[in-house]
């Protein structure tokens, strides 16, 4: 019987800590059929904008829809690649420059599947999840982030 997966919460309040990432990696030590993990981390950049220097990004989301979309993306990626595990975490609220706002983690027996799936996941998350980043500028201005 096929394992039934349900929508998981992907949202984390504020920045994603390196300790959370370490814990997530450690949790996979018992899965001894895994040969490779691929991880992507998005980090907030101190970009210089017309309005000034970015000091943080404030994330909001249409949470219900984002979780539903994330679930559909998960299912599609699991169907396409022979993965053992897949995890997606995205920040909500304020994430300061230098902090982690996105954590995508795929694992598989052989490295190729994990790497390709991770890359595709990141692209789809950026394109398809209803999440918005508002760039907080150091002089108290702000600007809406634009994905390219």
């Amino acid at each position: 019987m096929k394992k039934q997966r349900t929508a998981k919460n992907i949202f984390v309040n504020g920045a994603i800590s390196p300790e959370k990432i370490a814990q997530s990696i450690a949790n996979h030590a018992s899965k001894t059929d895994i040969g490779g993990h691929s991880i992507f981390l998005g980090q907030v950049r101190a970009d210089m904008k017309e309005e000034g220097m970015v000091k943080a990004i404030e994330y909001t989301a249409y949470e219900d829809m984002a979780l539903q979309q994330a679930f559909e993306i998960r299912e599609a990626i699991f169907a396409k690649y022979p993965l053992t595990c897949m995890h997606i975490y995205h920040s909500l609220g304020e994430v300061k420059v230098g902090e982690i706002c996105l954590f995508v983690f795929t694992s598989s027996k052989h490295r190729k599947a994990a790497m390709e799936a991770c890359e595709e996941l990141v692209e789809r998350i950026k394109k398809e999840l209803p999440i918005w980043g508002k760039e907080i500028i150091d002089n108290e201005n702000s600007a809406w982030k634009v994905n390219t």
Partner: protein
Amino acid sequence: MKILAFGKIAEIVGNEVLIVDNFPNTEILRGYLYHQYPALEHMKFTIAVDKKLTSGESHIPMDVEVALLPPFSGG
């Protein structure tokens, strides 16, 4: 009907939730919004109906959640 607004659109309409009359489809809703909030005419946004993206003229059933979504910028 209840309309959720996100990101820059919530800023323009001054609210995260709008309560408006029922509109039968997304084009009529769009016309109403442009009339009420002229700044929206210069903005790219998608209308989600029941948490699904729509394009062109899409039917809006009664009692479903409608949302105004500016371009996504997660990650």
